[in-house]
């Protein structure tokens, strides 16, 4: 509940906020370009994007995070729905969805501080996946905000390289009469 309040608080009146769209599309060449160009045409930046086939390999799911006002977003979503290769679009409200993102990060970890870095990734529940002479590569899959936190904490050690996947999300399982997945149109 605190997390949800935090998000609402951050949104503020009239300021753009993260919107997470889950777009089910045909798994075909060019579909990603069709989807992304509807955002590009309007000058909306895609904050993050994750695409992979679903359990049914005829379809892929695109999870796209955009910073845009709600009103123009509604129009973009309607336009997305008009794309012949788009099957279904849902906006995932952070309050009603589970989100995860994977981060790989290489940090400077010479002998003196190496144990601190290892301890830190352990606290976050991540792993050390590669060890160099004075660098470590860490991996963490977590809520995107937890990745932000880790990133902040690692920065003083010196981040050499960092790659995040962009978030993926699914609707929360139903526990109350309110549906978790809000169909936008």
């Amino acid at each position, binding site marked *: 509940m605190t997390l949800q309040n935090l998000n609402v608080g951050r949104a503020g009146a009239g300021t753009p906020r993260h919107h997470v769209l889950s777009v089910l599309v045909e798994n075909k060449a060019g579909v990603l370009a*069709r989807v992304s160009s509807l955002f590009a045409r309007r000058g909306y930046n895609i904050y993050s994007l994750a695409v992979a086939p679903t359990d049914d390999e005829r379809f892929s799911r695109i999870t796209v995070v955009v910073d845009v006002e709600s009103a123009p977003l509604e129009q973009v979503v309607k336009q997305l729905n008009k794309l012949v290769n788009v099957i279904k679009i849902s906006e995932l409200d952070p309050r009603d969805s589970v989100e995860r993102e994977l981060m790989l990060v290489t940090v400077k970890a010479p002998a003196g501080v190496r144990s601190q870095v290892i301890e830190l990734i352990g606290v976050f529940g991540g792993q050390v996946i590669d060890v160099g002479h004075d660098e470590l590569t860490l991996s963490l899959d977590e809520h995107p905000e937890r990745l932000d936190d880790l990133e902040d904490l690692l920065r003083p050690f010196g981040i050499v390289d960092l790659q995040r996947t962009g978030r993926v999300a699914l609707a929360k399982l139903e526990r109350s009469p309110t549906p978790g997945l809000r169909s936008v149109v």
Partner: protein
Amino acid sequence: MNTNGGEALIKALELEGVEVIFGLPGGAILPVYDPIIDSPIRHVLVRHEQGAGHMAEGYALATGRPGVAMVTSGPGATNIVTPLANAYMDSTPMVVITGQVATPAIGTDAFQECDTVGITRGVTKHNELVTRAEDIPLAIRQAFHIATTGRPGPVLVDIPKDTVDPTNPRSALEWYWPTDAEVTSSLPGYRPTTKGHPRKIKEAAELICAARRPVIYAGGGILRARAAEALRALAELTGIPVVTTLMARGAFPDDHELCLGMPGMHGNYTAVTAMQRSDLLIALGSRFDDRVTGRLDGFAPDAKVIHVDIDPAELGKVRRPDVPIVGDVRLVIEELVTAVRALGGSEAQADRSEWRRTLAEWQERYPLTYEQSEGGELLKPQYVLEQLRDRSPEDTIVASGVGQHQMWASQYWRFNHPYTWVNSGGLGTMGFAVPAAIGAKVGRPERTVWAVDGDGCFQMTAQELVTAATERIPVKVAILNNAYLGMVRQWQEMFYDERYSEVYLSPDLPDYVKWAEAMGCIALRVESPDEVGPAIDKANEIDDRPVVLEFRTDSAEKVFPMVPSGHSNDDIVVGPLGGEGGR
């Protein structure tokens, strides 16, 4: 393997009922042009690919059937981008086949290669690069299905040369023709809603019966949905007046007592002001275009809105409707008629006698006017159009370019039949008239087809008159030659302190008569009012070749009424002397 991709493509077009292809061959599309020789499909060889696209549009607008154009890769494809964008804006059903370099060469900057599907993605309803010969029949079926259903629009199919070249093993396929069910199931994301929601229809019917100052705001969707009869039934049942937008001219007869004519930036006072003062706008297949609404926050402030459209993205895009209805506008209107009848039909309508009186007063007080020129002066374009209208058959098809002549044509013609007005609305494509008229004449050879064009527009696509002369397509062209890019000149006069920047074109360079004659047309220059009628009569008698009439018109003449850009429709200026508008 009993056929090849090229033959399969032509056979697929035949099975889709295509009777004519407008096109121009080139390297990548060459193998497809070979089986055309043996096909019953007529091919019209254009002089520029843009012409092919606009002809396909004109054909579609005059017949209701999808227009088909075929061009080669690279420059052929880029030259047809403008017609695609035009058809997309005006929801015109069209299928464009483009050649593409062979699949192994795609992405290598091969000769005449361009990323056609990438370039046309934003200006087509759908496009598809077909990479295997066996996919061609399904791709063609899908293209026609998508182009003609839901909100119609252009679909492009990009065909690499190796899939159609019989000397290439990759072109071999076993012929098959997909069933309707296979086409539908191959497009899992494409399911247009056609039937309106019954509860919304009931709500709309109740609003309609109760409204005291209602207006039906009919858009181009009426024509796309073949809903003109249904619209008339609804208007006559309820007694509600109808405005027909630029895209809907002809969707409701101008001679009908309930017709108010065209609204918008150059609409007549009554149509514009009726919408402004209405308490209910019944938007049927229209999209609240900025040229209709004027400044949005001043548009029809007291009106509730019923908005019917096949495209869910139109509902609430510009104006939040009180009753949104997604569906095929013909089916929805028919359901509305039933629902209004159930409420008591014409007996159940609110008292609108005052509204009718007000509208009649406005019509009386603010007719379209212009001052006729004296002998020796340049012609008034409005007079030319009146003469053209009165001297041509009643069901004449009028095609238009974009600019002043387009507005005058829309204002002064009497459109009493659907599919008689062929124009470029949304994109505003100069040069549309000549090729679109040719396409319309190919689709409706029994009709008289006039292209009303400006001198600026004519110079953009005039070369297609060579096509018309060669193919014996006897269109008629009226050039309103005022020696200017007239609409731009009008804006410079009114809004840029008469500082005329790059709008002068010269009345006699080119010599339009010589030029038209060189292209195989009969041509006449008309300079005085008394010559206008006889010249038109002569043109109407010619039916074996294209005719071009050049009318020397007065460049000072401006299109009125006018709602200045960025102003509320209340600020309508009815005539050159200012005239009054508003409340």
